[in-house]
């Protein structure tokens, strides 16, 4: 296990080298939040409540959603595709390490730099600069666990997308398509309450809501019964397990078609 932490540390150090990148990411997120603030202000336009959400709740949902989007965008699939295309993947395959775990730890390393430089400052800003009222509730306690499960589901999906490079070599298309499907169906761009009831029912049985909607609702409506939150976590855990098994099975298939020239 110690070996894998070296990958985590390595990825963190790479993140620190590109400090300027985080600065622009934060700046971009601030501009996004300002625009979202005005957009949602005109969506509410005097209305107290829309689909069960107040303006403050909707704004918190959208702004935090964009922050989690940045956190979950770890480019794991892009890195894998590059390793597969160039053949450097053979370096990892010939060592006694698990390729999925290696990727997981590098991804955690990348994301932990991003938590410190982007996620936490943004949350701070939401409450202190945008002055979103802080509602006391159990949801905040469950949120970190929920976010971790969302991270794992997202990683498993990215990993599976990365594996598709074994077949197509270039993954722009499949990666972009996945990102769009996730951002619309997970509730990252619009709270799921805004969708028509029938569509909502379908979205709730898909894995995507477990990546954004679930953790976001824990913070947007934190004052619910602990039982509700535990049930949400159970659904997330189930999806984490399902996507993990699916990505393993896909790996066993994909590895068979790998051909690395020379080396």
């Amino acid at each position, binding site marked *: 296990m110690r070996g894998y932490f070296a990958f985590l540390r390595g990825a963190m150090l790479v993140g620190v080298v590109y400090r300027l990148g985080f600065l622009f990411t934060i700046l971009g997120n601030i501009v996004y939040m300002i625009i979202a603030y005005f957009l949602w202000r005109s969506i509410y336009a005097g209305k107290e409540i829309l689909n069960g959400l107040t303006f403050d709740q909707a704004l918190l949902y959208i702004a935090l959603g964009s922050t989690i989007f940045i956190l979950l965008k770890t480019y794991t699939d892009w890195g894998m595709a590059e390793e597969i295309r160039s053949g450097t993947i053979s370096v990892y395959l010939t060592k006694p390490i698990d390729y999925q775990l290696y990727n997981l730890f590098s991804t955690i390393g990348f994301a932990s730099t991003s938590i410190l430089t982007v996620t936490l400052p943004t949350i701070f800003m939401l409450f202190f600069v945008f002055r979103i009222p802080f509602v006391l509730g159990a949801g905040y306690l469950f949120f970190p666990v929920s976010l971790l499960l969302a991270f794992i589901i997202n990683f498993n999906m990215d990993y599976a997308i990365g594996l598709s490079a074994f077949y197509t070599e270039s993954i722009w*298309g499949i990666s972009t398509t996945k990102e769009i499907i996730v951002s619309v169906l997970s509730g990252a761009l619009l709270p799921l309450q805004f969708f028509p009831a029938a569509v909502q029912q379908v979205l709730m049985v898909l894995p995507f809501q477990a990546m954004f909607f679930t953790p976001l609702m824990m913070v947007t409506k934190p004052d619910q019964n602990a039982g509700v939150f535990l049930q949400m976590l159970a659904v997330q855990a189930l999806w984490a397990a399902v996507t993990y098994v699916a990505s393993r099975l896909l790996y066993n298939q994909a590895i068979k078609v790998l051909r690395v020239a020379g080396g």
Partner: protein
Amino acid sequence: MLTLGEYIRLYFLIEAQYIKGQMQYRADFLISSVGMFFSSLATLSIFVVLFNSIPDLAGWSLMEMVFIYAFYMIAISPMQILFDAVWFLRYKIQSGEFVKYYFRPMNIMFYFMSERFDLKGLTQLAAGIALLAYSSIRLGLVWPVGKVLILILAVFSASLVLISIAVMAGSSAFWVVNSYPVLALAWKVREFAPYPITIFDGIFRFAFTFILPIGFIAFYPAQFFLRPAEISPLFYLAPLIGIGLFALTYKVWDLGVNSWTGTGS
């Protein structure tokens, strides 16, 4: 110096080679084209879902929003199709490969940008034209020849604004090497171009009109066709803003090209 005709001939020669190279990744190309189409539909589906809950957005109806969005999709296509190379500048700077562009007897920006031609952008252009036609019919807009000419000019100006923002963001690679965060920032902000600029007030409306001119990408031009009575005099400035911004961008690019000292390899 090459003549315009020679540049056009060269462009087709370079493009033909690029497309041949891309045919290695046939599966990705097919998925990309489908993905591009879905990506255009994503924002549209968000509009449709949102308008289930609200009657209008800052006074604009769903169909009017579709029209503004369609205009935006058409305006972004030239950037997507012809200037896609900006996303790759940072790799060529990092590896030092960019040095090759200095040794060709032609314009560096032309040569660099011509090395990529984004075929999948054509799906977006087609979807944009279809949506513009659909929303015009639903809104009962009429298109005399004069108005069509103004539309073309408006698309041209908006495209120049989009191209300028992307090329300027990409050019930061000459100084900071990894221009990805700057490009990602520009890309994110531009996503808000199809929303009415009237939702902002005070300093922010000014900023999104003059400093980060996303208002000129879709809203001010679309306003001319949708509600000519409410039109802002700013609309007539659009071609000037477009050309001016592009000229400025070219200066920045040129400055970058001249100040880049290579990687030493």
